[in-house]
């Protein structure tokens, strides 16, 4: 990928120090983990002092944005070892374990449907035209856990516009790679592969909608959806489809994998909503990854707290019906 090789050539001594700091930091965390263990009864926990730049620097010219400024980040460790990515196994630790050999380059995305510029494009060509920036977003899983991640990527709307969707394009569907040889979780038909999900066009064009190629200043780890994934922070995590190989502009509401699996449990919209429970569990509260036994769960907010940016999209809609 162009981005990676460019950043490698551009490496400065100061950045090497950053990498060392990064390694030392883990060591520090490990040690403090033991310390915390010793004082566990006292109810202490590891303070989340880490900033994205502490983790790595694959993007030296990264534009920092105001999104999520001052939010307490989930640790890189937690965000990369507790994943729902059924293509690599249904256990939370499976994706990190089973995705180490996943090949993310070369990568291409096929554009189909109601747009003028359809065809297959190399990801590196798409990235050349993109403005790469960092955004800190809250992430709320439908299973009632949450994290806060500094994503690196580009605006979804900016990319979609370049394919010139026609007036018929009312929806956009995304598709994950189907390759059971590389994705051992696809050997069993746990879900209706390939994984698909979609957005209404105005949702996709919302400035919040983001395509991530990295996190914590590093390239996206495979278990987090490398090389490119969707991030729509006001929706439940499963809408944030990973390892995208196809984008289709459509006139009608697209098929979404979880919606097909459990139509009563996972709606097309799947907006974060504390008042509309999952039939089997409450969505009123959430557990932040990395929180210890004594920390209370936090209250879930409507649209995951992004109402100001997205509430207008659902004006006049019954959110219980269109859950």
């Amino acid at each position: 990928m162009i981005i990676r090789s460019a950043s490698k050539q551009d490496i400065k001594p100061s950045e090497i120090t950053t990498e060392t700091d990064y390694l030392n930091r883990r060591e520090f965390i490990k040690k403090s983990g033991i310390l915390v263990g010793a004082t566990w009864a006292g109810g202490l926990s590891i303070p989340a002092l880490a900033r994205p730049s502490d983790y790595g620097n694959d993007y030296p010219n990264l534009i920092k944005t105001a999104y999520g400024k001052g939010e307490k980040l989930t640790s890189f460790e937690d965000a990369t070892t507790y994943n729902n990515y059924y293509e690599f196994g249904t256990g939370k630790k499976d994706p990190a374990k089973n995705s180490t050999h996943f090949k993310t380059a070369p990568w291409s995305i096929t554009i189909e449907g109601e747009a003028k510029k359809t065809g297959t494009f190399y990801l590196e060509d798409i990235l050349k035209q993109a403005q790469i920036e960092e955004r800190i977003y809250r992430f709320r899983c439908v299973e009632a856990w949450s994290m806060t991640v500094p994503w690196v990527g580009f605006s979804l709307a900016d990319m979609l516009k370049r394919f010139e969707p026609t007036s018929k394009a009312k929806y956009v569907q995304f598709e994950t790679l189907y390759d059971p040889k590389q994705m051992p979780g696809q050997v069993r038909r746990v879900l209706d592969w390939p994984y698909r999900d979609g957005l209404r066009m105005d949702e996709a064009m919302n400035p919040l909608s983001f395509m991530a190629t990295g996190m914590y200043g590093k390239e996206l780890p495979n278990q987090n959806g490398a090389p490119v994934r969707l991030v729509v922070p006001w929706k439940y995590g499963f809408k944030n489809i990973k390892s995208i190989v196809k984008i289709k502009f459509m006139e009608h509401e697209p098929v979404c994998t979880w919606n097909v699996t459990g139509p009563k449990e996972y709606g097309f919209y799947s907006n974060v909503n504390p008042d509309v429970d999952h039939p089997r569990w409450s969505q009123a509260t959430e557990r932040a990854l990395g929180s210890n036994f004594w920390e209370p769960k936090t209250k879930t907010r409507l649209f995951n707290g992004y109402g100001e940016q997205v509430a207008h999209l659902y004006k006049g809609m019954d959110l219980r019906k269109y859950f």
Partner: protein
Amino acid sequence: MEVVIKNNVYTQLKEKVPGVIFFKPVVFILCLMPFFFLLLNAINNNLGPNPVEEMIRTLGDWGIYFLFIGLMISPVRKVFNVSWLSRYRRMTGLFAFFYVSIHFFSYIWFDQFFSLQDIVKDIIKRPFITVGFICYLLLVPLALTSTTGMMRRLKKNWGRLHKLVYPVSILALLHYFMMVKADFLVPGVMLIILSVLLGYRLVLSLKNKRKRT
């Protein structure tokens, strides 16, 4: 009847395999190991990014494992003719109760933080919690009547009462199934095991009925 037989087995055992008496504390410690390791991991912050979930699920798993081990004892004893195994039935049953109890208690403490209102709401509103709760309620009388004194007092009814372990194990597995989002592999394997264990008893009771008629 049962008590007499039990005592006979026990005295016979004492004479034949004195090691059994020695083994019991070893087995007891062994059964405590999952709890011990879980506690150790919890203290060392070693339960991953979502320690509460990890703890509750691990305890639930062990509850089911011990229920199954308990159900395995009488078929294994009969098939392999190892009568001393029945000495461990009460212990396994009580360990099942132990793990399910702390499973439930962890939910009350670390998931609901003792909020009675939330707990009651959850139990009424969420079918999978409801099933789990009923399952636990049914286990309580079994644990309470597990003493030899209670066996003696309840006589025939003791055996009848303790047949509750069958619906309990079915409900426990249902509780698991109802929690799963898409991957039914693990509870599926458990279902096969439970079917064999309960099927064995069904076949046996049918055979006995035929003999009588």
